[in-house]
């Protein structure tokens, strides 16, 4: 019996044979192993240096402004104050318990303890119901995008698995200034190694929102209703 797969491929090939491809078709990238992503295509991202270790203050300012536009609380602090500031912000928002991914760092854990916030680890993994009992989550991120005010998580050890930053109602994200890129293309370029390594990505632009009832914007439907961002410079 002919399988659906074979039938579909046969039909696609027959359909494509009826006319030459409209635009000159470049050879498709031939990725066989992760880590060798095709780089011959859209170079926008690379045009602006990806290895920018210098921090452009205008970019950080734009990020803070655009991220704030979505209703997130954004604060900029010197790196050495980031942990205390994060703990203070959480306490200000009435958060008493958070889940803290393994790689979040001792400084933050100490600051949380100082502020009287209970931090729960994720080993062994918490159930969704257990996560639902916690007030908040603290994570780092992989990349942030100034133009769109977006945080991108690749769920490495300092960010935890996807459910952590989803179920609790308050998400505090720590951003290092050098993680902020100007626009989407540079972000996509910087994220390629994460994707090649098989990591999932979550792009977050403000708290969860909907306009489904009479186009009235309502913050917070299913994801965290409060988004707090600490930019460490």
């Amino acid at each position, binding site marked *: 019996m002919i*399988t*659906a*797969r074979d039938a*579909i*491929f046969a*039909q*696609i090939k027959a359909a*494509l044979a*009826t006319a030459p*491809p*409209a*635009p000159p*078709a470049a050879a*498709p*990238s031939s*990725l066989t192993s992760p880590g060798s*992503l*095709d*780089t011959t*295509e*859209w170079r926008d991202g690379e045009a602006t240096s990806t290895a920018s270790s210098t921090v452009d203050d205008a970019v950080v300012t734009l990020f803070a402004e655009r991220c704030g536009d*979505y209703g997130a609380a954004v604060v900029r602090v010197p790196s050495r104050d980031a942990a205390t500031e994060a703990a203070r912000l959480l306490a200000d928002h009435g958060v008493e318990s958070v889940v803290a991914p393994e790689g979040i760092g001792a400084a933050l854990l100490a600051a949380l303890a100082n502020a009287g916030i209970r931090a729960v680890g994720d080993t062994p993994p918490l159930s*969704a*119901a257990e996560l*639902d009992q916690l007030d908040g989550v603290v994570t780092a991120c992989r990349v942030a*995008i100034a*133009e*769109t*005010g977006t945080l991108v998580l690749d*769920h490495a050890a300092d960010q935890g*698995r*996807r459910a952590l930053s*989803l179920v609790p109602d308050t998400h505090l994200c720590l951003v290092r200034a050098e993680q902020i890129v100007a626009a*989407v*293309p540079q972000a*996509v370029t910087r*994220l*390629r190694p994460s*994707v*090649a390594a*098989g990591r*999932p*990505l*979550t*792009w977050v*632009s*403000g*708290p969860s*929102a*909907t*306009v*489904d*009832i*009479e*186009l009235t914007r*309502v913050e*917070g*439907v*299913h*994801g965290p209703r409060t988004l707090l961002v600490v930019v460490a410079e």
Partner: protein
Amino acid sequence: MSAIAPPFPEAARKQLANPQLRANLRRATSTIKAKRALRQAEMADWEELRAAAAAIKDRMISQMDVYLEQAEAALTRAGAQVHWARDADEANSVVTALVQATGATEVVKVKSMLTQEIGLNDALRRAGIAPFETDLAELIVQLGHDTPSHILVPAIHRNRAEVREIFLAEMGLVGRPAPPDLSSDPNDLAAAARAHLREKFLRAKVGISGGNFLIAETGTLVVVESEGNGRMCLTLPETLISVVGIEKVLPTFQDLEVFMQLLPRSSTGERMNPYTSMWSGVTPGDGPSNVHVVLVAGGRLKALAEPAARPMLRCIRCSACMNTCPVYQKVGGHAYGSVYPGPIGIVLTPQFRGLDTPLDRSLPFACTLCAACADVCPVKIPLPDLIVRQRHKVAVAKTADLRPHLEVLAMAGAGWLFRRGWRLALAGWALSVVGRLRGARGAIGPLPWPMSRWTRARDLPAPPRQSFRAWWRRGSR
């Protein structure tokens, strides 16, 4: 999606008689349209982005088999199981069997045009599986036993009081009831939906999603959303089934730099949508351990087989063309009798379903050919050209019909008349006699049946007092 749906003009008349719907639609479409224009204006390279998006999609379309094979291999490497479906029935039975294999009797769903197109929810219900839509608007539509009126804000035809009534009456029947003191404040309504659905998310064993993009080189699926219900469905269940059209494949991950700039701005008029999830198969210790991707061909192969129709496969379902369409703005989505309304709908639906029903034959005419849609489409689909093409196909189909069509007869008559100069001269003279007798002023109408089918929506200009030939002869004398 039923074949007995009335043709567009009839359905439109019914929708137009509803002032609440017209007011809601006007507000929705004009608000989103204005936001979209603002976000487009922010981007200095908007036209270059559109050109890049069209080129990437065309490249994919012209080598679809290559990229699909690549995507299949990458997905398999990443631990996903890939399934293929030729049509809606096959897709539905694949998905049903996958759900049954888990033993689950309910699934949580994130809004997907394709699962609506194939009627997946009905198929699941027939198999005794309860599908729960989790998008707020889809929840309103589902609880209200209704159909979506807009692809982006599907419940735009409901006002807050109606939503409150629906939640109070229906939520308790399928899960956690709405609080009895529920107000009609959208914040309260959203909170009720959050509580109602959270219970479902936390216990769900199976999630079903669509996919906005599928990256061939990495097998990465992308879901773009606002509320976080998508993240819930994609992350919490053990089993995830994604139903994806074969035209959603994109060659490389880097291509997303183009589409992630175009889609949110074109769709909701935001710089970026609140949440986008990207995942490649199974991630050990994070999210579903049982990941399936069902690739559906459906009517897409019919579009692929006609080179002139191929650009419609570029569509990223942003709904910009709808919000800008003067017909859609007045009538809304219901009159189109398809999950795809508006300019792209009247092109896609007859292409996918064929031209066998009066409804599908009427769709390409639900258009003024103003071309506003072509200007906003982020992937530069030449919508007016494709619409004219569908009209041509309708005309050809009518000519081939055994039943004589008035329009075909009229065209044949006109052809006969125009073929000889003297026939045209005679007709011109005869008309001018009528014109003089009537004292030609303004317009004629309404005419008796069968001509009423023309005149009930249009004016027929009154015949002139003299024909062009007569006027010319007099002028040159």
